[in-house]
């Protein structure tokens, strides 16, 4: 009796520990999709896989079932919506998506392992721009989408396709443009009698900064990330530089980059209108607290940074205003693009389904409806020109003083400086975050010297 009882207890313990992920392939109803999206995609710092097949519903009868990996819950929900719309429009070519939302680093690690092993990779996958170049080194395990993207190119801001190309072929398509904007705390600028719309160049920006800091001594006009790369890299790209050039050469120590870093160093160390971002970068709780307390008056970040205000700094809603990114005097670049995630089709998709996958992915993202829903459903800036006149993009934003965001972005579209990626792009990004920016801004190393060291160090590791 005792023996049976102990065996039963052990069996129950094993069952309790071993349970967890369901491995259903195509659940028939997805009524609980939103709830399970919240439950399963908790976006915690821990690297954990949450397989959530109930996020995506089955189509019946399905022509193909595709597994999809992403690291953002909102993306998964968006893809399900697009899959439904595809199925409605293509009754003879229905698709079913099985979505998994996996934490950022873990997902890319898993993808690399799956490619090395030759199995276990999803059919469709989101790859973040900072990691993308790793997957175009050596054998490329992604499907070539050049032909599928071609018909859409004339309607797109074509430079947005650049980061996801290798050897002239297109391997992924992005969600958004990521145009860089300047965000100003209207109250602080009004009190100093500075009109944000009058700030056109970086010289104007510095002058405005001095005026604001004179009016109120405990305010820093701007904050620059030290262990984040976006503000500094935006300057580099807008100046005409960046990490790579169009020809695939590493250009860390180019003239343009030197000019950009000199400007950043000048703003922090000479003119003293900018401080290192509290907490190290503008995604940290320290920074949000400082911004909300009115200790920092402005930042320059991509359009997607807008969501940080209602999400993390909601007391500033109604007090913020967006303007175009300041420019370098005499340059035709009005802004640049930062961040991004490309969706690709992998070579572990059955050969007879690859065409369908590619058609679906490009249709979902690059059509007018797709690009419009990038804004309405995901809150990102589209990169298709005809979408900018759609009424959905003309709604005033209450968080940002009822401005129409896209009118501002549209005014920048004439000179969006492109960003190119290459094999050392992830490494360069890390180097900037842990060494270069710290050297130039905090340790006041001469920008040319720091960039020469960067170029040398990164090249020697290839």
């Amino acid at each position, binding site marked *: 009796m005792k023996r049976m009882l102990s065996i039963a207890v052990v069996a129950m313990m094993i069952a309790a520990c071993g349970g967890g992920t369901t491995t259903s392939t195509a659940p028939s109803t997805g009524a609980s999709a939103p709830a399970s999206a919240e439950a399963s995609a908790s976006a915690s710092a821990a690297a954990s896989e949450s397989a959530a097949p109930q996020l995506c519903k089955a189509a019946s009868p399905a022509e193909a079932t595709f597994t999809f990996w992403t690291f953002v819950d909102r993306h998964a929900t968006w893809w399900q919506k697009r899959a439904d719309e595809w199925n409605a429009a293509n009754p003879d070519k229905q698709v079913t998506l099985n979505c998994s939302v996996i934490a950022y680093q873990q997902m890319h690690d898993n993808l690399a392992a799956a*490619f090395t092993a030759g199995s276990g990779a999803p059919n469709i996958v989101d790859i973040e721009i900072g990691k993308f170049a790793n997957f175009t080194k050596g054998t490329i395990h992604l499907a070539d989408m050049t032909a599928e993207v071609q018909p859409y190119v004339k309607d797109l801001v074509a430079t947005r396709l650049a980061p996801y190309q290798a050897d002239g072929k297109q391997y992924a398509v992005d969600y958004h443009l990521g145009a860089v904007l300047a965000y100003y705390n209207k109250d602080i600028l009004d009190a100093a009698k500075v009109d944000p719309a009058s700030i056109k160049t970086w010289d104007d920006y510095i002058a405005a900064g001095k005026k604001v800091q004179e009016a109120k001594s405990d305010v820093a006009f701007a904050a620059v990330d030290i262990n984040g790369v976006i503000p500094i890299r935006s300057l580099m790209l807008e100046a005409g530089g960046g990490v790579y050039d169009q020809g695939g050469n590493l250009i860390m120590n180019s003239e343009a980059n030197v000019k950009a870093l000199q400007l950043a160093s000048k703003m922090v160390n000479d003119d003293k209108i900018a401080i290192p971002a509290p907490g190290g970068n503008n995604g940290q709780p320290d920074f949000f607290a400082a911004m909300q307390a009115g200790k920092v008056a402005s930042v320059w970040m991509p359009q997607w940074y807008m969501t940080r205000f209602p999400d993390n700094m909601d007391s500033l809603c109604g007090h913020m205003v967006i303007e175009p990114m300041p420019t370098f005097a005499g340059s035709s670049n009005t802004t640049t693009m930062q961040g991004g995630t490309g969706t690709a089709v992998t070579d572990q998709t059955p050969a007879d389904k690859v065409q369908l996958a590619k058609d679906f992915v490009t249709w979902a993202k690059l059509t007018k409806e797709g690009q419009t829903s990038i804004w309405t459903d995901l809150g990102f800036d589209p990169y298709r020109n005809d979408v900018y006149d759609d009424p959905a993009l003309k709604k005033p934003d209450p968080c940002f003083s009822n401005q129409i965001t896209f009118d501002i972005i549209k005014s920048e579209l004439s000179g969006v400086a492109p960003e190119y990626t290459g094999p050392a792009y992830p*490494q360069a990004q890390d180097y900037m975050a842990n060494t270069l920016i710290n050297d130039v801004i905090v340790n006041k190393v001469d920008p040319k010297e720091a960039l020469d060291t960067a170029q040398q160090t990164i090249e*020697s590791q290839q």
Partner: protein
Amino acid sequence: MQRARSFVFGSKLAPYVFVAPFLIIFIAFRVVPTIYAGLISLDKFQGTDDLGFVGLQNYQKVFSNPALGKAFNNTLFYTLGTLLILIPIPLLLAVLLDSGRVVKETVFRVALFLPALTSLVVVSVIFRIVLSKDGLLNVGLAEAGLPSNAWLESASLAVPSMIIVAAWRWTGVNIIYFSSGLVNVPRDLYEAAAIDGASAWRTFRSITLPMIQPTVLFVLVLSIIGGFQLFVEPYLLWPFGNSPGNGGLSVALLIYRTAFNNFNFGQASAIGVLLALLILIVSIIQFRLFGGRRFER
């Protein structure tokens, strides 16, 4: 059937049968990957493609990376720092708790041990907030009239920040180790010392310390190996492990970054081999220096 059973469970074969599961797992998941890593440290990788043998090229490239020296420096300072704090203090606390002079000493034991039970991820996330400029630590220092610091934003304070986290976390564990060593010290030695009029300090120096020497060695070895394998704290205290000026970069984090950020698997394996050699050498030295001594009985 009976003959098969008695063969398998007979005294000749039985030991191997019982050890086999552990051995298989150990060989498959420890020995084979170690040998494989050693082999691929000599290969050139392009992405996930192994392009073949290139001799010591990976080692050359690794040595020319300034981050390598920084990583080893940081790891060594971190290990030294944790040794200086996490051996004497838990030892003294364990002696105090064991002395019977503390009222409700179980409460203290539990309270000191609780940090070790928390998930390292949770600890790092919380300490990111505690160590921020307006965080708990700076507030506490300000109350005590001491200057506050930018713990996580300064290159020179990165290792001290990690040592603070380690001190909070591992004190309790080391107290447990030392306590179990202290429990094995025969009580009559203490009685004899008391009769001879020895002071508390003399008793500690001449009886306690020599008697728990094996325990101290054990804790020392564990702490050194743990220190060299430092990864989670630097990875989570800073976004993607990028500490300012690489002030918090550890060797294990450099290996991870080289492999999974830069996709340089050959170079990452080379750094891994170097770390393994370092730990091996240090362990051999430790055992030669401390393991050979025998105490008087």
